[in-house]
Structures are given as C-alpha cells and as structure tokens.
C-alpha cells in the first residue's frame, strides 16, 4: 500500500517549485480571484447549511415567535423550553427515545459486526447471495413493511409498547450496519491477521486483539447510524404506538403542539431543538473519527 492515503503531511519526494505548504494542497498557490470565489462559495455553503438550524434556535428562544419575524430573538426567553420539558411532556418522550435508541444500537451493532466479519473475511457458498440480500432489503420501503409489521405486532399484543418498536428498529438498522461494517472489516489487511496466526493466536484471540480494535472506528460510525435511525424514525413510531402518549418517542411527540387552526411555533421549535441538538453535537464530536474511519488503512508506511 502506498503512502498516499489520507491527508499526509509527509514531504513530497519530488518537490518542485513552490513550498511544501502549497504542495500539500496539491496545487500551485491560487490566484486572488480563485481565493475570493472560494471564500464566497464557503460563505454561501455555510449559510445554506446552517440556516434551518439557526432559524430553529432563534424561534425557540423568541417569546414573540410566530408573531413577527426577525433574525435575532425579539424577546429572548426560555419559556418555550420550560413549557416543552414540563407540561409539553418531552421529559418522558426523551427518556423513551433514549431507551429505544440505545437498546437498538447495542443489539444491531453486535449482530452487524458478527455478520460483517462473516461476509468480509470468509469465502463460503452463498456468500454473494447473502450480500445481495443485505443490499436488497435496504431498499425495501418502510411503507411496504409498516402494514404487515403492524398486523404482526398487533397479533403479538405489543402495540403501544416500546419493545415492539425496538424489535422493529433493530431490523431497520441492521442491513446498513452490515453493509457499512463490511467495508471497515475488509479494509483491515489480511496480513495482520496472518501475522497473528503465525504468532500462534487462535481465531478468537485474533478477533479480539487485531480485528476489533481496528474496526472500532467503523463500529462507532455504525452505532451512530443505528442511533440516528432509531431516534429519528417516525412512521413506525406513529403507527405502532397509536394513542399510547406515555410511550411516545420524541419524533412523534412533536405532533402534540400542532393545533387545529394555529400552531404553537415557539414550542414546536423549542422541542425540535431539544431533539436535534444532542444528535448534532454527538455527530460533530465524532466526525473526525468517522471520516478517518472511512479513509484510513491500518498499514502505516
């Protein structure tokens, strides 16, 4: 494997004119026009990317939300948050969602890891068919599953319970988890495994000491996806939980703030913020590992 993977800062061997700083970006020093253009592009991109989140926050903090529209809170207040977390019932919804999402992540990551090792590391009959199956079930639309699973969960008398929801979410998170982890497992050089065997390790030992640590970034990424799937899911929560308000997850809890004629936008945005911010912070914190997990190889030059 060459040393070219990742953002390497190693000096380039054939360094021609232009300092290492410019070489690092792989081009000559850009002209002023290009740099201004790039600056404008970055500014517009940031505006487009962040505006919805910004607007959500501003509306949530504005006592006047829904009556006037200004780009900063006209009457800064936390009353919407207070309302949402007490009378609005979001304390309960948050707890439900957290329980559902964490359980889903634990179960689905474990199952996905085992399965991905099987498809990435072993050649066996039906392997390609198994991979196809995993790829194909990912495209199944939830609307096709929601009808039979509703009937199934109803027959099991699990309608309105969190257990029914967790079981469904594990299945939803699993195919993507397997598909993603398979890439991470395959990226671990076989040479490392073989070295472990030469040193006398059993398969189990090799799995624990070589594969697991090297796949850890992939596991983190997969867990994030599983968590987000469960946290954000809406169709099944709406259908399976029905009228059991005390078991609502955050995604459907939001709907309680919509009135017949007017919507309490301050409260809706405050609740949306409560739902979004933890996921966002989590996402940004792990993004470095996510990105490096996608690109890095284990053999250092």
């Amino acid at each position, binding site marked *: 494997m060459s040393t070219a993977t990742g953002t390497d800062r190693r000096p380039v061997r054939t360094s021609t004119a232009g300092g290492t700083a410019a070489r690092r*970006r792989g081009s000559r020093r850009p002209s002023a026009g290009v740099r201004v253009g790039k600056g404008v592009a970055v500014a517009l991109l940031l505006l487009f990317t962040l505006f*919805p989140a910004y607007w959500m926050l501003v509306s949530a903090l504005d006592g006047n939300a829904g009556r006037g529209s200004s780009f900063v809170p006209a009457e800064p207040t936390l009353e919407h948050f207070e309302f949402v977390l007490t009378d609005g019932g979001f304390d309960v919804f948050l707890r439900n969602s957290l329980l559902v999402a964490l359980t889903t992540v634990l179960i689905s990551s474990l*199952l996905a890891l085992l399965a991905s090792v099987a498809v990435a590391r072993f050649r066996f009959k039906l392997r390609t068919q198994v991979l196809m199956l995993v790829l194909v079930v990912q*495209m199944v639309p939830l609307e096709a599953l929601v*009808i039979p699973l509703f*009937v199934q969960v109803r027959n099991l008398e699990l309608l309105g319970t969190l257990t029914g929801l967790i079981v469904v979410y594990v299945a939803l998170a699993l195919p993507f988890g397997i598909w993603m982890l398979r890439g991470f497992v395959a990226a671990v050089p076989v040479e490392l495994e073989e070295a472990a065997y030469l040193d006398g390790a059993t398969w189990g030992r090799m799995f624990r000491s070589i594969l697991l640590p090297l796949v850890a970034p992939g596991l983190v990424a997969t867990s994030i996806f599983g968590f987000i799937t469960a946290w954000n899911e809406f169709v099944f929560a709406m259908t399976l939980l029905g009228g059991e308000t005390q078991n609502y997850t955050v995604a459907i809890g939001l709907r309680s703030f919509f009135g017949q004629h007017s919507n309490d936008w301050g409260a809706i945005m405050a609740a949306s913020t409560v739902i979004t911010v933890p996921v966002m912070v989590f996402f*940004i914190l792990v993004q470095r590992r996510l990105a490096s997990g996608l690109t890095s190889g284990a053999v250092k030059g």
Partner: protein
Amino acid sequence: MTSTLPVAAPAGPGQSPGPGGRRPFGKSVLARVRPWMLLTPALLVLAVLLLWPLVRVALFSLQDYGLKEIVSGERNWIGFANFVEIFTSEQLWAVVLPNTVVFAVLSVACTVVFGTAVAVLLASLGRVWRTIVSSAIMAAWAMPAVTGTYVWVWIFDADRGVFNHVLQALGLQDAPVNWFTDRWSFYAIVLLNVVHHGFPFVAITVLAGLLGVPKELLEAAEIDGAGAWRRFFAVIVPQLKQIFAVVIILSTIWDFKIFAQVYLMPGGAGSNRDVLNLGVWSYTESFGQNRYGFGSAIAVLLTLLLLGITVVYVRTILKEEEL
C-alpha cells in the same frame, strides 16, 4: 475462488486442505461453520422482520383486507383487483407516479452534483476551514428528517413564515402566499429539504475518496498539461467510480421512499390529493381508509420499482468488482 461448503454438506476431507489453504485453519470443520455461526443471528432478524413481512404484504395485496379481516384473521382473496384499480386510476398516472419518479430523479441529481461540488471545495480548503465547514455539514446531516421538515414548514409558513416576510419586505409580493397548496412549490420545498439533508452524506463520502486519490496521479496529469476539469473527470472520477456508484444507489433508494418529508407538510398527509407520492398514498389508504389490501398493493408497486432500480445498480457494481 474455492468455497467451503456449509454445515449440511461437509466437503470430502481429501480435497479441502489444499485449496482452502488460504486460511491457516481452512481444514477444520469449525472454520467452515464459523461464517454461518456469525451470520445466523443477523439473518434470523432479517428473515422474521423484513422478509416475512414482505411476503405478507404481497399476500395482503391480493386480498380485500380491512379492519374486519385484521381482527378476525380470515382471508378474502380477490385476485388482482387491487392492482387493476391502481392501474386504471387517474390518480396514479397524473399525480402519484410523477410525484415519485420525477422527484426522485431530480433530487438524486441535485444531491449528488451538489454533494460532489462541496467535496471538491472541501478538499481544496486548508485544515482549519475544512474542519469548520465539515462540522457545519455534519450539523445539516444530523438534523432529523422530522424536525428538519418542521423547520422548513415554519420557514415557508403562509401567515408568519420568514420567507413570505422577506419577500414582502423586499417588495417582491404584496400578500403572503401559501406555498403548500401548489404542487410545484410544495415539491420545490420538499426538494430543498431532501437535498439539504442528503448532500452531507455524499460530500463526506466523496471527500474521503478524494483524499485517497494518489497525489502522484494528479501531479502526473498536471505535468501532462491537464486542466482542473480534465483532471477531475479523467483522473478523479474513474478512481472514485465505486464510491459514486454507492452514493448514487443509496441516494436513489432514499429519495424514492421519502415519507416524513411529504407526510408532515401541510396537506401532505392525504388532504391535498395533488401532492401524494407512492409511499404516502399507500399509507393513507391503509391507515386512513382502512383499506390495507389496496394500500399493500401500492406498497408492492413501490417495492418492485425500487427492486428494479436496485437490480440495475447491483449489476453495475458487480461488473466493476467482486463484492
């Protein structure tokens, strides 16, 4: 490639050690059973919770399946009557299919092109700005579809939305406009929402690929006199074929079955018949009208449509490389 056989049919002891010698313990039974031991839990879950329901939805689609049948569990076979009703319905050809297919094509194109452009921009930035911008992108990605949709609804709200407000302040319109009643403006908002939520995945994945393209290749192309566009299309794109294939597959699959982004918009839950797409139509017929059989038939159509697309893509991938 030698394939070790599954448990049921143990291979002849004489033949396995040689060809199976890629793995140091290729000869042991344990090694042959191991992949299946690892796979079983996941396959069980997939079979019970995804495959069996798929079979059932196909069975429901051939029945007049309503609340009565759910409670009693009896069967009421009506053959292909549900499908005949769908295909002879004006609703399907004039509204639902265009809303699903045209929208998916447009949104995949926008998402992939925009996401790739952002990836190229990110790759050309310095370390600090790349971190800042990619954090912002992550924030857009992390925004749940449900809350994201509500925020866009709020921005475009007819009475008090900031969009109408700004247009009026700029003198571009006299009275507030309800953007959700018209089919085109409705779907323009959905497109904005879907691209905003979908491009980060493309950008981050393509960026990872871009950073992995050997610098030597780009330098060689540059020395040979290739301009930036030429370098992108002649060097980078072929290198990232696999990544683009995956990104396009997943975006297509996701964009064909958007549900919450339509369902949660004003009128999107079935009251505005002009904005139905296949998914929402299926859901509202089932859970709104209690016509579970008819809804299942629509769901079967959506599934077949996606299956067709997936098969085409899988073939492309298989041509490129071994899975």
